């Protein structure tokens, strides 16, 4: 208790609170601009922490991480362009809400769900860090492969009108991610002799192209400012009411638990968690048809889950020293620079710093809440900008984002080509969200499958002898069967109506 109070005093020092706030703000800015990820923000923030004490330093890094994870929802809702891959699922219902003039409701709900998810995962982490880390470490290649297959099965729920088109879209995403150097044997694949393609297609660049370029091309069909004016009349700055949010509390709890669990498994991450949570919300909703049209649950579920990942990833990071993704690897580097070595002895050797981190996470989420809620009334004014001028601004931001991923002109070309292809697909009513899901899950599914087979000497028994792998593969099969049965029933009822 003394150690906790000591840590709380250190973390509640005005200098430390300011450091967390600064990190949160930088994270929010980087997270909300497509292409500028919070991993970049963390890399830029890391040198700033060198001269700081350990508690404010780790607070700044955690604030940047948390702010970045939350910030992706702002551009996802307002522009339909996710700031980070974790916010890709938020686009599906967040942006339709913004189009209906409910941007502030969606943004407000996203912030509250994010904060709830983050605090929930922190609480789970504090209570069960040893238990969860022991469970998470039990996930080998076979189990992660099965989990990712389960994630892939949610494509069925993202298909919109046509399951076949959605599946095709998902396979295209999987194919795109096989381009580049093979991660296991180091040979170039499907590069067509291009040096630029040797390093593969960046997920971020593809995401910018998929969501931003169709928006810019569609703006070309506008009638110069008229659309902007039309949109302005419908914009309100109402925040979601307490009663509405309370009615979503159980959904937030479920999705936060899912996000925490996914986050605790190294090599997974926010994007997988948010898609799984979105699919869970859709499948358990009484109003499934409204998903994709602007259902608030479709915003709350992914946002609660992807922020719950932040606490989840800290579990293996602190207890075992295993970073789950590049962002937490930078946080790990920051900890080690300050002499904090994560691992089983962490809680004995650095209890004050660990408790300080817990308090810093809470402060970071309070900063997120304050900054985002204060900013919502400003953010929604983005929608008042005439669509044509907004499109030009979005294009420049996206080009900077694509360039800054690898400081390569090739990524600018890739963004343009992928974007135009995405525009054609959108015009042909092919859903593009499954492409993102395929791209997110593609590298993991292949690497884990191949690693599992190599470990087992080529025997598929490795998947069948693991209860965890069997559970997830069974769940995937169940989701696909339920979706297919639902589709057949829907068609049968439509045929009856037509007859």
């Amino acid at each position: 208790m003394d150690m906790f109070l000591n840590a709380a005093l250190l973390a509640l020092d005005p200098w430390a609170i300011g450091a967390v706030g600064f990190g949160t703000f930088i994270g929010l800015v980087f997270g909300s601009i497509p292409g500028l990820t919070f991993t970049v923000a963390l890399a830029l923030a890391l040198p700033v922490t060198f001269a700081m004490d350990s508690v404010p330093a780790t607070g700044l890094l955690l604030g940047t991480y948390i702010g970045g994870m939350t910030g992706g929802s702002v551009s996802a809702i307002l522009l339909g362009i996710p700031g980070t891959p974790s916010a890709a699922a938020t686009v599906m219902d967040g942006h339709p809400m913004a189009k209906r003039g409910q941007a502030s409701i969606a943004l407000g709900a996203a912030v509250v769900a994010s904060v709830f998810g983050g605090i929930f995962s922190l609480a789970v982490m504090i209570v069960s860090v040893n238990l969860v880390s022991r469970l998470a470490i039990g996930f080998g290649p076979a189990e992660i492969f099965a989990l990712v297959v389960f994630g892939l099965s949610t494509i069925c729920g993202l298909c919109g009108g046509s399951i076949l088109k959605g599946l095709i879209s998902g396979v295209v995403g999987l194919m795109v991610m096989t381009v580049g150097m093979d991660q296991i044997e180091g040979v170039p694949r499907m590069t067509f002799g291009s040096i630029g393609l040797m390093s593969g297609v960046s997920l971020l660049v593809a995401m910018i192209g998929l969501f931003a370029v169709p928006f810019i091309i569609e703006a070309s069909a506008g009638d110069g400012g008229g659309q902007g004016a039309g949109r302005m009349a419908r914009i309100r700055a109402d925040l979601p009411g307490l009663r509405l949010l309370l009615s979503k509390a159980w959904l937030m709890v479920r999705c936060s638990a899912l996000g925490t669990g996914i986050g605790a498994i190294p090599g997974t991450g926010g994007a997988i968690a948010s898609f799984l949570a979105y699919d869970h919300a859709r499948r358990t909703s009484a109003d499934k048809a409204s998903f994709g049209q602007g259902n608030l649950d479709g915003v709350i579920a992914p946002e609660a889950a992807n922020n719950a990942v932040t606490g989840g990833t800290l579990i293996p990071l602190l207890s075992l020293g295993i970073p789950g993704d590049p962002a937490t690897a930078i946080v790990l580097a920051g900890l080690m620079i300050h002499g904090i070595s994560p691992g089983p002895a962490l809680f004995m050797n650095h209890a004050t710093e660990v408790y300080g981190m817990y308090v810093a996470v809470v402060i970071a989420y309070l900063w997120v809440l304050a900054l985002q809620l204060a900013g919502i009334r400003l953010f929604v004014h983005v929608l008042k900008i005439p669509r044509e001028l907004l499109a030009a601004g979005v294009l420049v931001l996206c080009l900077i984002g694509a360039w800054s991923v690898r400081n390569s002109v090739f990524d600018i070309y890739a963004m343009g080509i992928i974007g135009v292809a995405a525009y054609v697909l959108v015009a042909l009513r092919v859903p593009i969200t499954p492409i993102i899901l395929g791209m997110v899950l593609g590298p993991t599914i292949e690497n884990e499958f191949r690693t599992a087979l190599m470990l087992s000497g080529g025997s598929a028994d490795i998947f069948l002898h693991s209860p965890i792998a069997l559970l997830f593969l069974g769940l995937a099969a169940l989701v696909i069967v339920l979706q297919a049965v639902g589709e057949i029933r829907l068609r049968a009822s439509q045929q009856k109506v037509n007859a």
Partner: protein
Amino acid sequence: MTDLRKDLVLGLVLLAAGAGWSALAWATLSPGFGGGDIGPRAFPLAFGVILMGLSALFIANTLGRDTGGAAAKEGSASILWGPALLLLLEIAVYGALLEKIGFVLATPLLVLAVLGANLKIRGPLTLAAMAAGLTAGCWLVFGKLLGIYLPGGTWVDLG
């Protein structure tokens, strides 16, 4: 073009893409060495074959579709090929110019081209303000404040 025909063309293009992809994967990638190594070819090839299968199913589904049904009445948007290809060209030229004349000079040219040619903005004041404002704002915020590297040109470098 009707929705039915559009879907048919889409299915055929995807089928051809899947076939081309699979053939390329088969011809250029090595199989595994055995003993659990399935090699770098297995997944690209499998995805190509799956795409072919799904496309064939999609074509069959499209051909068997009830042309008078609700799905047929749901009109898909017409494709704006002109603006789409123009934007692609502008992005390609911007990429080339970025290396030659740098961010500070290439960006206003891109903004002017996109606003004038694609978005049909004609007011000279709006054009000038957008080109100068976006370039200066991004250069200041990203280049100077956030420390993102923005390229200078090999021909002209204004920083």
